[in-house]
């Protein structure tokens, strides 16, 4: 795979290193002269000096044949522009953008730049996962496919406690895919009885979260 990484900060540099170790071809583009000189010693010909929002810089790095463009500069406008141009002008199939300010996430979405990764959001998600008082954890969101996987801890007062899976009338577009009980997970059968304290994993169409929360953690605090 040929990957172009834009921005040689901590993220860009480490990504480049990892991808090279895995045997991929990488070009790392950096627009600050002093930063470029520092990375050039390590990355040699894989490092390029230039402003990757300039089309000729992208073309010089061979964007036409890139399988992946990753924009991880500290500037959201630059990351949006690089990805938009990579996707729409050079028809690069895979792009990944870093969101520095989570308030800009909507702009990335509006411009069709997915996935857009924000460290703040990732840490928030980890907090959701680590802090059990939140009833609902987002495990995976496939935004384009409009599907998610969530985890819900079954509360004592849930209407589904003591009920067989086959008898739980979940909304269309949702399915229990796994139950975690006493530290082990299993795929439920129709006669599996849900217990308080179970963690149920559900796959669902976007937008069904609230309805499902009512089944398993009616008084939880979805985030």
């Amino acid at each position, binding site marked *: 795979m040929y990957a172009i990484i834009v921005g040689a900060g901590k993220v860009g540099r480490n990504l480049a290193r990892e991808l090279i170790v895995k045997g991929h071809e990488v070009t790392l583009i950096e627009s600050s002269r002093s930063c470029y000189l520092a990375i050039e010693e390590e990355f040699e010909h894989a490092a390029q000096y230039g402003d990757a929002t300039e089309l000729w810089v992208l073309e010089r790095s061979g964007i036409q044949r890139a399988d992946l463009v990753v924009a991880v500069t500290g500037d*959201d*406008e630059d990351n949006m522009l690089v990805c938009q141009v990579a996707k729409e002008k050079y028809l690069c199939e895979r792009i990944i953008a870093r969101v520095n300010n989570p308030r800009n996430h909507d702009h990335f979405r509006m411009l069709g730049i997915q996935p857009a990764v924000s460290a703040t959001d990732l840490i928030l998600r980890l907090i959701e996962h680590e802090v059990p008082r939140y009833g609902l954890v987002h495990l995976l969101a496939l935004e384009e496919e409009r599907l998610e996987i969530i985890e819900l801890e079954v509360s004592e007062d849930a209407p589904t406690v003591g009920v067989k899976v086959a008898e739980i009338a979940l909304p269309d577009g949702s399915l229990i895919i796994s139950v975690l009980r006493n530290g082990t997970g299993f795929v439920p059968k129709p006669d599996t009885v849900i217990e308080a304290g179970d963690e149920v994993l559900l796959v669902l169409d976007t937008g069904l979260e609230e309805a499902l929360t009512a089944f398993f953690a009616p008084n939880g605090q979805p985030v």
Partner: protein
Amino acid sequence: MFVLIVGAGRVGSAVAKSALAAGHEVSVLDADPLSHERLDAGQSESWEDAEGQFTVGTALEVEALVQAGIERADVFIASTGGDNTNLIIAQIAQKRFDVEKVLARVMDPARAGWYGAQGLQTISPTRHAIEMFESALEIQPA
């Protein structure tokens, strides 16, 4: 017409003043509060006395755009100092707020050209400078 100008540098402030003088309603958004001085410079009355609006904020913040009146803007001019900022905020104005006429100042002729072809109206001062030099030298553009 209601004209919203983002970026009160030399270009933005000059266009703001002439648009106001021409009788348009003009709102200016800039991240730097001191940029307001450019709107007053050389005028007989202050920008606000002349009924101009000025908002401090960055154009990527939707709240700042709304405060500056983007929801009723007929024209949106992106004239900050950054090409990429101008290209992104112009698309926000066009796609999110459906502003009818959106113009972006883009120094780099290559980016101005491509985004222009995608339906965004771009103005490239660099391109104009190149053409004027070429015509002064009586060279046919390449």
